[in-house]
């Protein structure tokens, strides 16, 4: 490597110029597995075809076509409503404000419905918490509504067989059990709903021996305990990342998964904007961790600390800032770096923030001591609007198991949670369940816990429910149903109230729980406000806005009453084992709650870019010159046997830059035993989690052995190297295949004096990056490069294209790489909006994923501990598009509004366009992924499903009716959400006014929690888009090839302190 600090690479194979990778990158469509597969008898059988079959199908096809041509057109029916609801106009979308809730995760959203079907989730920009951002999980939640695995009615289990029963039977059985119960427990994840709390209160009042056990799938119990001890307030405080100049995070993935990532990302990004080029300022973000997390990848500096050293690292910093704290042993590099961090923090008193994802109470007390000592309480750590998103602790589950084993629990009610899978002692709980007389589950689908229950009383999906959410103190949002319950389900709150025989629930009413909810709001929120005099007016406004704010009245800055010195004794002790394993929550899967959601399964992990399974991230040993090897000689896609605390697992491997040497990482939440799509996808590691002395779960293990290569994964589904296309050529004279870009360097150097920046694909003008310190210089450099590229582009005989867009619209997009954190909300939003097919693990491994929008991950800087830049890459809608010229049937062409149009019904599938696309954003329907084709599907099944995913009528309800479902054999790609553009234009036309920025937005733009994507009309010179494009940081990807893209990117700037690297 020439200069590690300015170079960019996409992964190991690119870094070492792996010959196999280079060879693949020369091909039009990389197919590393295809030849293997064809020789593989098993796969060939799965494909179910041979030459004779082909001829049969050909003959049948011709015959069928002839018959079809001769037949009459089938009679289609037009079925109107009997009584049309006033609010529905068929063909026009209605939006309802609601809230996405899953346990303690919540995002206020707007639900787009068409003809009464929810089809898309958008952010609610009235929310003071998220400001309109969403997460990938929120975006995908609409799909789980149409999950084919949902219970269609209440069930009763005997001897492992579920049998549908009536609700009356459920009520009768449960009430009888409750009446005679010795002890009753409701086990739940965090409940955010104040009205649900009221309902549970009625239940516990009726049954005085009932108690609620709350835990969270990934625990934050230690923070709650620590805050109770330090501040006397058992909550997660409201963190204000936007008010902090220096942010230090010890293993807290606050941009990806930790507590309230959508809210934190929106705050964090505010401090990351370069407002003034001449005097650039940016917050500093230091992450202490072992594995590369989404947050760590976005940090300026990362400090390595093994999982077992994390306590020492926190204690070390606490000692520097608070003093009087004893420090266990810690690696020297971390010490040196933390010294610098301490100095930075002290210089930013009251404008800094230290957080930790640790589940150790003592460590969290130290964190509180640090923040308190820095004067951050009440400024960046606030309690007035404290977060309520984590209220549980697995300590309560420990108690529960004890209680059951003591014979004190007769009835257990599981509120949609899955502790048998999620809880570290899940197997102990499962065994204990045998002693409970009646076990009831509210779960919507079968899972590890529900499978052990006697009665299933399935609750509604959130999109079918009434409800409310108080995610932060005083910040309420509403849940309103957007569809009538699809199945014979009942809201769990209603079930509890019925069983409690509540006098406040009118069960004869049309929607009993709705009345109960309204009544509760009348007595609580309505009473606190004075804007509306009648409740109906108030309620209408709440339904309209979806959010409502009341003053919580809590003390914003309670004093720190903890003791740092004594807490130091309780921090985790460094282990001296050779290797440690870190367990983390992945951005898409949580702790397995979303394993049944194919959109999230197929969404690549932002960091290691793998899908459909969890991969063991192993560190990379880089020799500093040209070669590196993975830990134990392991390469991407190798299978390896690991033994964690005596449990043997076989997992596939991914080499991970930025993984601390001596550590490996593995995601939680995979290897679920229930749920169609989660079957046999990944491995479960929840059962090797350990608990510390306080009963809190340790999300790491020091007792781990990693073997060497034990085979190759059959379908290695990492998308990082897909769709890369290097330029190689035969060298004159020698006939050797060389990298053409490298050869071109000489030419470039001669004229411009520019060095480096060539090589294979990544060394072209794809990513520009800078540190804040070098920004001025790099902006100058960028301008020089852009001027040069533009100069070259002018040396041509063809006239320019700009005059074509002097009137009407010219659509364009701006992607701010500095704001993009890589969370993937946009990719799921895109799948949802545009009916993008899910293809499954095998197809992903064959480079056949259909995503229109991918987020490329590039490493840059120090190869040992690199920074990461995420680049959302979609069709660039080039004004001089190379794809358009090569299409033999003109199926892709240009519109007068600057769109690169793809016409599916014209496409004959030559794939010339995909070959010619320099951005590799065109996707080909190799197989009949949607069964939209006339003839049967040829897709290999993902799991044991009857139909390919998305081909059943229930799942098809999620499709956007305005977008074509593509059939086999056609190319597709990003359309800039043309259906939304057309709708926006029509709205303006109908209203007889000019188009405004707010009329048009792409799905990715509305999904983004950080506002990284701006869509608009380039002809609107006063619009946001033009303003952003005019930034001196903006550039066009591959500008030198003169394709004139319509998407502008802005330079990635970080605030790295290079002195940490030494």
């Amino acid at each position, binding site marked *: 490597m020439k200069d590690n600090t300015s170079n960019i690479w996409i992964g190991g194979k690119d870094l070492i110029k792996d010959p196999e990778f280079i060879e693949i990158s020369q091909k039009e469509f990389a197919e590393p597995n295809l030849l293997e597969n064809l020789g593989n008898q098993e796969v060939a059988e799965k494909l179910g075809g041979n030459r004779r079959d082909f001829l049969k199908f050909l003959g049948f096809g011709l015959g069928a076509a002839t018959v079809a*041509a001769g037949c009459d*057109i089938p*009679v*289609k*029916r*037009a*079925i*109107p*409503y*009997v*009584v*049309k609801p006033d609010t529905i*106009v*068929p*063909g*026009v979308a209605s939006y309802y404000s609601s809230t996405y809730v899953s346990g303690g995760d919540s995002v206020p959203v707007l639900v787009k419905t068409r003809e009464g079907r929810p089809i898309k989730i958008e952010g609610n920009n009235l929310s003071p918490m998220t400001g309109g951002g969403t997460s990938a999980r929120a975006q995908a939640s609409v799909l789980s509504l149409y999950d084919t695995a949902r219970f269609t009615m209440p069930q009763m289990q005997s001897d492992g067989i579920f049998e549908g029963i009536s609700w009356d039977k459920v009520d009768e059985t449960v009430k009888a059990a409750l009446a005679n119960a010795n002890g009753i427990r409701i086990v739940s994840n965090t409940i955010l709903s104040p009205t649900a709390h009221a309902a549970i209160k009625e239940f516990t009042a009726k049954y005085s021996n009932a108690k609620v056990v709350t835990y969270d799938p990934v625990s934050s119990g230690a923070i709650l305990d620590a805050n109770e001890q330090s501040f006397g307030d058992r909550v997660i405080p409201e963190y204000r990342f936007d008010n902090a100049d220096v942010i230090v995070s010890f293993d807290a993935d606050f941009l990806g998964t930790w507590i309230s990532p959508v809210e934190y990302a929106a705050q964090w990004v505010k401090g990351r904007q370069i407002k003034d080029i001449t005097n650039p300022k940016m917050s500093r973000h230091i992450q202490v961790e072992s594995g590369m997390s989404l947050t760590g990848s976005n940090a300026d500096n990362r400090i390595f600390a093994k999982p077992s050293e994390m306590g020492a690292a926190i204690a070390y910093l606490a000692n520097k800032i608070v003093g009087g704290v004893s420090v266990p042993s810690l690696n020297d590099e971390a010490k040196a770096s933390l010294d610098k961090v301490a100095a930075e923090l002290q210089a930013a008193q009251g404008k800094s923030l230290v957080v930790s994802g640790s589940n150790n109470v003592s460590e969290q007390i130290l964190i509180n001591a640090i923040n308190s000592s820095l004067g951050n309480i009440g400024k960046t750590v606030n309690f007035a609007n404290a977060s309520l998103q984590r209220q549980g602790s697995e300590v309560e589950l420990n108690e529960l198991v004890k209680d059951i084993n003591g014979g004190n629990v007769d009835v257990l009610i599981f509120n949609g949670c899955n502790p048998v899978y999620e809880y570290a002692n899940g197997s102990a709980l499962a065994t204990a369940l045998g002693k409970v007389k009646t076990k009831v589950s509210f779960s919507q689908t079968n899972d590890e816990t529900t499978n052990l229950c006697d009665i299933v009383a399935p609750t509604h999906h959130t999109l079918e429910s009434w409800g409310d959410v108080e995610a932060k103190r005083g910040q309420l949002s509403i849940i309103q149903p957007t569809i009538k319950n699809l199945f014979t389900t009942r809201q769990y709150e209603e079930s509890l109230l019925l069983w409690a025989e509540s006098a406040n629930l009118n069960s004869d009413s049309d929607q009993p729980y709705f009345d109960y909810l309204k009544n509760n709001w009348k007595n609580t929120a309505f009473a606190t406000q004075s804007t509306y005099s009648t409740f109906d007016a108030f309620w209408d406004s709440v339904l309209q806005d979806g959010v409502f704010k009341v003053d919580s009245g809590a003390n914003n800055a309670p004093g720190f009453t903890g003791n740092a010195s004594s807490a130091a004794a309780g921090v985790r002790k460094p282990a001296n084992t050779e290797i440690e394993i870190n367990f983390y929550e992945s951005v898409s899967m949580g702790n397995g709650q979303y394993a049944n959601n194919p959109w999230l399964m197929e969404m690549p992990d932002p960091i290691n870019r793998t899908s459909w399974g969890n991969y063991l991230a192993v560190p990379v040993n880089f020799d500093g010159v040209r070669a590196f090897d993975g830990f134990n000689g392991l390469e991407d896609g190798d299978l390896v046997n690991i033994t964690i605390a005596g449990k043997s697992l076989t997992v596939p491997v991914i080499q991970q830059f930025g993984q601390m040497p001596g550590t490996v990482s593995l995601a939680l939440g995979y290897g679920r035993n229930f749920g169609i799509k989660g079957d046999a996808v990944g491995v479960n590691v929840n059962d090797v989690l350990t608990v510390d002395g306080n009963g809190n779960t340790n999300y790491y293990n020091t007792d781990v052995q990693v073997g060497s290569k034990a085979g190759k994964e059959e379908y290695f589904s990492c998308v990082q190297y897909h769709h890369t296309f290097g330029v190689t050529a035969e060298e004159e004279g020698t006939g050797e295949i060389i990298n053409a870009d490298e050869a071109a360097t000489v030419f470039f150097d001669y004229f411009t004096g520019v060095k480096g920046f060539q090589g294979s694909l990544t060394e072209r003008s794809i990513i520009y990056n800078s540190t804040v310190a070098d920004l001025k210089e790099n902006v100058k450099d960028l301008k020089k490069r852009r001027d040069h590229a533009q100069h070259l582009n002018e040396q041509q005989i063809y006239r320019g294209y700009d005059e074509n867009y*002097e*009137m*009407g*619209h010219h659509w364009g997009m701006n992607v701010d790489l500095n704001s993009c954190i890589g969370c993937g909300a946009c990719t799921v939003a895109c799948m949802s909006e545009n009916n993008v097919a899910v293809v499954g693990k095998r197809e992903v491994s064959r480079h056949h994923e259909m995503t229109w929008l991918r987020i490329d991950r590039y490493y840059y800087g120090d190869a040992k501990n690199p920074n990461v830049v995420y680049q959302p890459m979609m069709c660039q809608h080039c004004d001089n598009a190379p794809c358009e010229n090569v299409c033999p049937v003109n199926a892709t*062409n240009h*519109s*007068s*509004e600057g*769109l690169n*149009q*793809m*016409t*599916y*019904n*014209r496409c004959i599938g030559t794939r010339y366009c995909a070959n010619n696309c320099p951005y590799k954003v065109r996707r080909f329907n190799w197989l009949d992924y949607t069964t939209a084709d006339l003839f049967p599907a040829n897709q290999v099944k993902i799991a044991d499903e009857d139909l390919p995913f998305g081909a059943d009528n229930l799942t098809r309800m999620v499709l956007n009716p*305005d*977008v*074509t479902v593509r059939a086999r054999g056609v190319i597709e790609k990003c*359309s800039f959400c*043309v*259906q939304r553009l*057309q709708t926006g*234009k*029509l709205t*303006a*036309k*109908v209203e*007889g*006014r*000019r*188009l405004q920025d707010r009329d048009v937005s792409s799905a990715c733009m509305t999904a983004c929690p950080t506002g990284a994507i701006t869509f608009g009309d380039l*002809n609107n010179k006063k619009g946001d888009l033009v303003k952003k494009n005019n930034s001196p940081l903006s550039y066009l990807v591959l500008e030198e090839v003169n394709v004139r893209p319509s998407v502008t990117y802005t330079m990635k700037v970080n605030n790295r302190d290079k002195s940490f690297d030494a």
Partner: protein
Amino acid sequence: MKRNYIMIYKHLNLTKILTLLLVFVSFSISAQITPEAGKKVFKNYCGTCHSKNMVADATGPALYGSQERWGDDEALYSWIRNSSALIATGYPRAVELKSEWKTVMTAFPSLTDDEIGSVLLYIDLVGKGEYPPKTKLTPGDVPVEEESSNTWLYILLLGVLGLLAIILTRIINNLNVLAAAKEGKEIQQKTLIQSLTSKGIVSFLIFALVVLAGYTTVTNATNLGRQQGYQPDQPIKFSHETHAGIHKIECQYCHDGARRSKHSVIPAANTCMNCHRAIKVGTEYGTAELTKIYASIGYDPTSNTYLENYDAMSEEEIKDVYTKWIEAQYLEKTELVELDADGKSEVNAQWKGIKNSLTNEQKKKIQGPIEWIRIHNLPDHVYFNHAQHVTVGEVECQDCHGTIEKMEVVQQHSPLSMGWCINCHRQTGVKFNDNEYYKSYSKYHEDLKSGAKDKVTVADIGGLECQKCHY
């Protein structure tokens, strides 16, 4: 026009002429009383409640013969203008009508004597089946436009040319033989058969066949899936002519999606009920068709109420409700006390019709939506938006759907092919100056001002581009 009058009067019988004379005399205005004017008045005022065939009862009684029944034109005229006033005077016929029908006819004080005269004439003629006139044109009267077809001419021409070709072939053949003889060679003269099966002719024929087959294949393939003129029978014999034509109900009253949605929307049964709560017996089909609406939505026309818990009712229960209604109407119409054999078969037939119309293989229950046959089927993968055309483009419904208001049974007027769409987009001007939205097309506005363009077509602003309709 003038000829028409003559035609009509030709068919008048003596009493008619006498009646007319009476009218002429009474009001001394003759030129203004015409059945055409009467038809107009009937449509505007009377048609809502009275049957247009004049012999059936509807909301109001059948009108044919009313003049004879009243026998007093002066009273009849004042009855038509303001029936309540006449009832108040205690005029016997008026009081009788009121007690019989229990409703009061709407007052039309603005009607002139001419108009009333015209409408009475119209009623009489229609009742007798003499209007509209069944015109028999004599050949000499009107120049007959021959259905001119050139096919025969072409065939004739082809024949002549073929004959010519054969003759020429023979001549060339003969000349060849002569030329050869002159040179001393001897060649055999080709027979006609030999000439016709020569290589040249055969290859020409094959070539022609291939071209013809290709042309036919392409034309037929292009037409696959197109169904211009498609006119299926609908579950309810709903007449657009009656509703949109005669009663002039605004299209968008029922198709309320057209102005704001991509779909024009087939009206829900509750939209029908807005009018048909009052109009319960059709002029054309009596109870046969309208009862289908009631059976779909669960409305009991006998008691004028919606049936409670209709969705849970069994077919037998539903049958009871509606056959009772049909029976009652039949008895009222025929003035019978008990159902006769005809009546029984009539009731049965009507019930069968209801059941057939409201059920099919997928839909087993009578209750629920009326499943119309969809006539306008766009090709797959096309996005079409009614609001864009109706509200923004101000295109008339008839431009694409034809004279719907004259269709007793709707048929597809336009081919709905891409070529048809494109053609219209090429020719149609955009409402460029009226809509603020188009302000951003500054250059076109200049062109319009300077006269360089006389209109901006849809194509000019990108109306031919793929992703305007395909996405």
